[in-house]
């Protein structure tokens, strides 16, 4: 039974840890499907986390916090758009720039405003998102097997967790069942065709980046307002890049993205769980192996050894209208 409880707890932390990955991954999906590479997911999450925690602490409201997170993160996405859509700059270079500006400015501003070494003030319960206890969670807790699964794994998460998982079918619906989604996919494959149909390539790509900004903002808010209760210097710690890896792993598809993020989240949860405890057969697995595994898996996938990851065809190429 202990093993079972441990497994449920590990899966529970898997869910919690994969939420920021999932939101960032879906964010990247919108922009990359529209033909804009986005290495700047990390930076946008970071400014989202900072803006969210700051606004929540100053205005004592979680809703203002997340609103601010979305706003600032979207503004950064618009900088990316301005450079890579309007001025046809290199999208990778622009993404790298955004990551640095985010990493530096969050610390500088945090230190100047709050004087806590780059941290923001700890958020009280009212300034964070409450956990939702699903009906009957307490009642069924003692039921064997199903009880812990329902009350620990499924119930008791923050609103944003449920929201993140609802975003998956929503993104699928947007991408494959709406006119906007069809055009978004088309502009990532063949922008000239979209242009010929009389649709503005630039405006379409800007809208895709707005979706990216909103989702990275929520991802950042989740980090600083749900998982942590305050902003800490460099708190994304490479999550944006893991999300990018997950996006490739998922072959740029929303439902796959969820499974890829759950897999990477599971690896993270496992590495925390297994710290110092030897496994049967394999022996002690060092934390570094677990940390490197998502990246190694992505490289193997990229190499085409397990299926082939084919990116959107027009990705990374600025669109030049013929004159």
């Amino acid at each position, binding site marked *: 039974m202990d093993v079972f409880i441990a497994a449920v707890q590990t899966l529970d932390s898997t869910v919690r840890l994969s939420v920021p990955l999932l939101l960032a991954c879906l964010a990247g999906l919108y922009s990359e499907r529209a033909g804009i590479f986005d290495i700047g997911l990390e930076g946008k999450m970071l400014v989202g986390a900072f803006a969210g925690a700051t606004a929540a602490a100053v205005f004592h409201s979680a809703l203002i916090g997340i609103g601010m997170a979305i706003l600032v993160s979207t503004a950064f996405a618009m900088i990316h758009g301005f*450079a890579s859509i309007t001025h046809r700059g290199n999208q990778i270079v622009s993404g790298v720039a955004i990551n640095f500006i985010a990493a530096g400015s969050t610390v*500088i501003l945090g230190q100047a405003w709050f004087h806590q070494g780059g941290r923001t003030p700890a958020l009280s319960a009212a300034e964070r998102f409450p956990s939702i206890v699903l009906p009957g969670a307490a009642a069924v807790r003692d039921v064997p097997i199903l009880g812990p699964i329902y009350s620990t794994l499924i119930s008791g998460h923050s609103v944003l967790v449920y929201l993140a998982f609802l975003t998956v079918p929503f993104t699928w619906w947007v991408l494959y069942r709406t006119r906007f989604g069809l055009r978004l996919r088309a502009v990532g494959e063949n922008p000239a065709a979209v242009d010929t149909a009389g649709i503005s390539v630039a405006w379409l790509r800007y809208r895709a980046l707005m979706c990216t900004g909103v989702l990275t903002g929520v991802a950042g808010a989740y980090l600083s307002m749900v998982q942590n209760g305050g902003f800490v210097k460099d708190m994304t710690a490479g999550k944006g890049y893991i999300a990018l890896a997950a996006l490739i792993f998922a072959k740029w598809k929303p439902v796959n993205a969820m499974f890829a993020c759950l897999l990477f989240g599971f690896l993270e949860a496992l590495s925390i769980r297994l710290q110092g405890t030897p496994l049967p057969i394999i022996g002690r697995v060092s934390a570094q192996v677990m940390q490197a595994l998502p990246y190694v898996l992505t490289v193997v996938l990229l*190499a085409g050894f397990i299926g082939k990851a084919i990116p959107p065809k027009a990705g990374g190429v600025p669109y030049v209208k013929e004159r």
Partner: protein
Amino acid sequence: MSAPYAKLPAWADYGLIPLVNLVVAFIVAGLVVLLVGENPFRAAVILVEGAFGRGQGIAYTLYYATTFIFTGLSVAVAVHCGLFNIGTEGQAYIGGLGVAIVCLAFDSLLPWWLTFPLAILGAAAMGALWALIPAWLQARRGSHIVITTIMFNFIAASIMVYLLVGPLKPLASQAPQTRLFLDGGQLPKLNWLIELFGGKVRAAPFNVSFLLALFMAWLMWVLIWRTRLGYEMRTYGFSPKAARYAGISETRIIIVTMMISGALAGMMALNPTMGDQHNVAIDFVNGAGFVGIAVALMGRSHPLGIVLAAVLFGMLYQGGAELSFEMPNISRDMIVIIQGLVILFAGALEHMFRPSIQTLFATLSPKSAGLAVNGEGA
């Protein structure tokens, strides 16, 4: 990189436009300083004085610049071949492994002038090796080199952490680093060079790897503009199609270029390890690989430009350290912002001011906008 824009005189292309981009980046950085509640002009004065005011500052500035010359060259070599090597950070980190192996093996046996060349080879070999896999994947399997090199940065970090908390750490120690190198693994300082010009240096880590960096910059110039290989690299970077048509092997050129790039990145490890700390510690690269991107962009991938840009970033690092004493609100992270702004304005937005500068040229002197007239004002 070619641009779909009309021609400008060379001095405007290589001097004026980067300067305008840089000035804009610093103006925005100044606004951040203002936002933090400090005076940007006073900050700039403290910064420049901290970097160049005294011999001690100059030595530190050049020490940092050494690191950035290596990483800048590393990024720039790949850029000439149309490849974006974002993995300089990881290659430099793994280069440290090469330094560690050589120094730990030979520092008690050989004098520094024999360990140094071996360590150069070790660092370059490890860095090149770490670039080889992404290069091969790009050339043969078509995996995007940007993504694979990012992944390899993280894998490199995991490997180095594993080695530095495990096999490379002395048994008695808790700190995640190798033992101190003996005299055979320590590079002599170059501080006398500054004292020769009348500067005073108490203690600064400015060392002979600076000369190696300058030599590498010259070597890169020879490679890119004076050899067949360099010509092939530039051809491939300009137009992969034309290169293929000219019978240049795509696989060979990508792999060779990336290995050169990785080797230069690996050599960066010599400066902070053998030159300063005398050990290989966790996170010793500390973002220098990414600074290399900014340096290469600002130096327009030309060795001379890279050396100048590296000195500028060395100034920011050294002056920034002084600045954080004087203005506690402005920590080292201010440099990260400036670095980001430089990458944004000199890299992603490099063409933003071009049309207006072109219009300006066309109105002031129609001849210069149409024909590349050299020399005026330069």
